């Protein structure tokens, strides 16, 4: 077993194990922490696949942005210690079957379709190539992404602002 495969399995286990922790924990803070671990594992998998840039972006965007936002959400929605922890979920059996169905679909029907790529990891870093592609061939996509982000930011801000306005009007009314 090569070293790289060992690392792959290690990070895979980290990712999946953390995801399982999210699935089973009732504490939101634990869940956020486990999500952090899981996303880090994914970033490592990216790196192992030769996508170094993506690994970095993954860490920056998720851990720097999404996770902080989630934490903010956790704190915002905090009500009481009692409600801090989620009560027992409902109808587990039915809902667990559905993802299993998907896994089944994938394993039974999709995997045999895959062309086997057996090329070994021979090349050096693709960072340079990535950067070149972004600014040349995929530039329109890049622009669209920026635009999308702008729209999302404005939209989110608008949604948040209506809240503030409602609060204000409520306060005035009172």
């Amino acid at each position, binding site marked *: 077993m090569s070293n790289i495969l060992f690392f792959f399995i290690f990070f895979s286990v980290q990712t999946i194990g953390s995801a399982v922790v999210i699935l089973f924990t009732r504490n939101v803070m634990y869940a956020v922490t486990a999500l952090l671990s899981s996303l880090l594992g994914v970033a490592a998998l990216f790196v192992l696949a030769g996508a170094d840039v993506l690994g970095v972006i993954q860490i920056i965007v998720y851990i720097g942005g999404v996770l902080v936002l989630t934490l903010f959400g956790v704190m915002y929605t905090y009500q009481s210690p009692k409600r801090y922890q989620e009560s027992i979920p409902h109808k587990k059996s*039915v*809902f667990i079957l*559905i993802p299993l*169905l*998907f896994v089944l*679909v994938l394993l039974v*029907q*999709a995997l045999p379709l895959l062309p086997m790529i057996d090329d070994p990891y021979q090349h050096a870093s693709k960072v340079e190539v990535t950067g070149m592609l972004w600014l040349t061939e995929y530039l329109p996509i890049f622009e669209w992404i920026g635009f999308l982000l702008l729209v999302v930011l404005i939209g989110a801000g608008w949604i948040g602002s209506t809240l503030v306005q409602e609060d204000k009007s409520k306060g005035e009314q009172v």
Partner: protein
Amino acid sequence: MNPLQHTDPMLLPAHFLHSVALTIFFLPVLTFVILFFTGKHISTSWRSWLATSVVGLMFILSLYVHLSVDVPIIARWSWFSMGTLHMTSGMVLSSFTTSMLVVVTAIALMVHLYSMEYMKDRRNHSKFFPYLALFISAMIGIILSDSLFNIFIFWELVGLASYLLIGFWYQKKEAAAAAKKAFLYNKAADTAFVIALGLIFTYYGTTELTLLRTLISSSSILVPTGIAISIAVLLVLSTFGKSAQFPFYVWLPDAMEGPTPVSALLHAATMVAAGILVLIKCDFLLVEQMRWVLVWTGAITALLAAIQAIRCYDSKKILAFSTVSQIGYMMMAIGTGNTSAAYFHLGTHAFFKAGLFLSVGAVIHTMHHIQQNSFKNKIYLEVDTLDIRLMGGFRKTMPIAFYAYVACYAALIGIPFFTGFLSKETILASLLQNPTYSIPFGMALTTVGITAYYMTRQLYWMFLGDFRLAALYPSCKEEQRKIKENHWLINIPLIVLACTTLSFFVSFHPFHASDIHWMKAPLPIVGGSTSIYLPIASISITLIGVLLAWSMASKEQLYNWKQYWFWTFVQQNYGIEKAVQFVFIIPSFLIARGLTYLDKIIDMWVNAQAYLAVLLAHIVYAIDRFLIEGVLKGIVFLIRIVGSSFRSLIQGQVQSYISTTLIVLALMFWWYLRQLH
């Protein structure tokens, strides 16, 4: 032979006398209607006087009609029409019918006068006189009618009235039973009348008696012999019921449960006389064979009833048996063809039998008063007031009743100078004329002796000796001293009836009845002129009977006498009722029971079919329920499961929607990827 077409009788205009006769007929109808519907709203005395005066008026009118009638006059008018069928209704006024009218109204008047006092304090009094009126009216209808159809209607009315009067004190169980018995025996006989009527109408085409008589005497219509005999048999049978002949006579002794005046009327003038009357009217219909039957039946009846009277202790039942036996004489007379003799005996018998009943009734009345008075003194005498064993000694205390009784008694047993002797001699003589009837003649002569025996016995026990009730119940001694003559309303009828039993009332010749002036019709030459030995023989037999009774009566054991099987048999009406039971009733019940079983079997079959149908229905039901409905229910259940499972997904929860979407997505992937293979 084909039945004849209906012949239209000629209509005849009514004479003035017919309207008088109709008035006589309708007066009691009027009384009946008035008294029946006013009921208890008018007082007892008013009621009695109204009814009695009406009967008195009827008697006077009857006398007038009788005296006015010379030759028979017939009125015939249309009764109703049905298509080509014209029914007529006729009335015949001859010396025969009008004299019977006089007899009936005279007896009725006596009975009414008597009843005014006798029935005064009795229960249910308001119904008594209307029923009597109905009875008399129906009897007059029978007497006057010329149509057998009309006679049948009145015949049934007589039956109804007798039923009502016998069961007059219907609260008494015995009275109700006796009324029922009389009614049923009569109805059984009346069935024969209906059939006879139908046969006559079918084969002769008419029921007008006058017309029938001419048709038969002229032999213009030939009727098969079998039919003629059937008609005769049926007619005779029906009169056997009404006139209480063997074997139908068993109802008559029981009919003594009715009030005593009713018994007098029933025995003397109305009920039992009706049968004889109809037979006399239909005499021309009797064929030769039937005459023989009539003689024999009459003789047997006379003898059997007389024997039954020997050991009887019921004062009224003795008289009832004597009536039966006397009517047997009348039957014999009709059988010999001497209808005049029968009619003569009917007339004389009416008077002396009414007298006997009324005088015995006077004694019973007194007995009843004693019982009532002692009841007022709080002593209840549980005795039968009709029992001759409790009577005695009334000769001194009630001389009028006694002498009236003796007169009628003498007439009944046939002592010379009394009417009964004349009529009985006539019948015996007509029997003697025909040598084939020697045995019936012997029976009739024996009956004369037995009659003398039992009547003397009754006379002895009722009127002579000591008052035995007081001997048995010392508490009655006080009452015994108070016994006196009855009210004049009771005594007058007794005196009148006693007078009518004297022979010069009917014939001035003491030993010969050739000159019956009030009947206005000379009898055929029978009687003394045939044989001088006959009256001597009968008188001597009578005397033997009287003397025997006289000597036996004082020695007779009143209670606990040895019961020979013969007397038990006699007291049970010679087993006639048992025979009826065995011959008719038990077979009927057996047939009924057999039919019940048959019915049950049919029932079982039907039930089995029904059960089978029910079983099939259950099977079909089960199929329907579990197979068809089950399938339907299964489908419904499946749909419901599917529906509810889908419905459970759509509960407004985001996750449910997501899961649904994902399932569909997975399936789509599955399908898509399979396509790729």
